């Protein structure tokens, strides 16, 4: 049920498109594909928390081709459409980087002595963004929210993202901008709002949502979540931030070059 609600929120958010100067059809399709693949991977990481943190010997579902196949399944269920063709270098690179991120975390994931590995959706998404940032392909993707509420200072919104969020916070819609810049070069930008989902509340909600408090008397509850941060007491009606995507225009035109 929890997953269903989350999926519904995501689907809804992607159906609400709007604003600014629209990119051309090809660029918009690529931006949409990238964002939806990225969000599907976050959902998969959430779904697999028991496997990530558990002591199972076989965690192969989290690595390599299995990982990609499982993210594809999530995508198909969530958006009720086929997984996009990996017909552009940027999409191929995104998918490969997901595999790389999980490989980099392999020692942690396989460590039976650690109960909580810290590989939650936001952390996975951040690692993905960080790895993509050094590949020099003119692609930047990040999960951000309004600057006063940000936990990781490296995820703080830039001016464009702050402006967009102030415009859409009361009426969340996907925001496109065909006149953006990235690394000083012309770029397409897209901001996809992400409504709060029940799973977000485990960390960002009230103490009653904190799994560390389950089964304990109220007076023994902690306000610190499992990642070590103070909980924000947000609810499902709060703004959940969003996925900000920037792709250099030269990248869009460069298909299958590598």
């Amino acid at each position, binding site marked *: 049920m929890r997953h269903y609600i989350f999926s519904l929120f995501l689907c809804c958010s992607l159906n609400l498109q709007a604003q600014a100067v629209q990119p051309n059809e090809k660029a918009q399709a690529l931006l949409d594909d990238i964002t939806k693949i990225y969000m599907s991977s976050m959902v998969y990481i959430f779904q697999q928390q028991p496997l990530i943190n558990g002591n199972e010997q076989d965690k192969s579902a989290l690595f390599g081709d299995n990982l990609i196949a499982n993210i594809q399944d999530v995508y198909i269920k969530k958006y009720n459409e086929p997984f996009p063709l990996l017909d552009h270098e940027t999409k*191929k*690179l995104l998918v*490969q*980087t997901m*595999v*790389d991120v999980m490989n*980099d975390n*392999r*020692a*942690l994931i*396989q*460590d039976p*002595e*650690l109960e*909580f*590995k*810290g*590989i939650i959706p936001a*952390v996975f998404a*951040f*690692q993905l*963004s*960080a*790895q993509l940032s*050094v*590949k*020099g*392909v003119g692609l930047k993707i990040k999960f951000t929210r309004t600057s006063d509420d940000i*936990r*990781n*200072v*490296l995820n703080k919104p830039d001016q464009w993202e702050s402006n967009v969020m102030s415009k859409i916070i009361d009426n969340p819609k996907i925001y496109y901008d065909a006149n953006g810049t990235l690394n000083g070069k012309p770029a397409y930008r897209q901001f996809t709002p992400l409504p709060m989902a029940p799973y977000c509340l485990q960390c960002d909600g009230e103490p009653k949502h904190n799994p560390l408090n389950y089964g304990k008397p109220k007076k023994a509850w902690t306000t610190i979540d499992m*990642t*070590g*941060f103070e909980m924000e007491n947000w609810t499902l009606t709060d703004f959940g931030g969003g996925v900000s995507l920037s792709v250099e225009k030269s990248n869009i035109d460069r298909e299958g070059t*590598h």
Partner: protein
Amino acid sequence: MRNALFALAIICPILASAQNYQGVVRIGLLEYPPHIVFDDDIGPLPGYMSKIVEGSGYQAKFIRMLPERGLRELNKGNIDFLMPLKTMEAKVSVLSLPILHSVPGLCFKKDKFIPILSATHRFDDLIVGMPNGYYVVDALASSQAMLLEVKGDDAISRGIDLTQRGRIDAFYHPNPSHVYYEGNPTYKEVACSSFHGYFIAANIAVSPKIKQQVLHAVESQFVEQMQSENYELYLSRLRRNR
């Protein structure tokens, strides 16, 4: 006669290709898994560099080295380049772009493990060992952790050892994947997490005695290649095609 012709058939192309090079560029390699590995499969970085050197008209010759000797030979001019090197390790000239980046992190004894290092308030009062001469990420430098400098050439292994014995709470490592990997027999009690989003650049060091003609040729080919497909992108492509 048949053998002689066969030998000629093999030697001729080798001679022809050797003649196409303007000379040999000697590159010292420091072990840096998974990019440079000192076993049969030497890792992907030498292959990438070889392509650059050949593109500049020279032939690459790789020589495996330990860091101290590598720097000595670089300064003497017995090798032309040494890689990879973090700029703060030694005051040497480097090519204009870093060849790769590592993500620094903290290694803990497992019972004190902190998985998410953006939660810097959890560093309060931690005693964190630091290898001398490394760039410290802002998240750690501005935290309330007590930083303890560990000096010496073997500072990293001593720091990890101190962590494992519980003498310090954590140790700052420029590339924790060198310590924390499956089946490492040396440090079984240690687990590491990374400062994602922070990078330490690793460079290609240049000998002060290199011929300027060689340096210019390699440098310009290096920049061109990095702009076309940098090493990290090349690595992604290699992994995808595996």
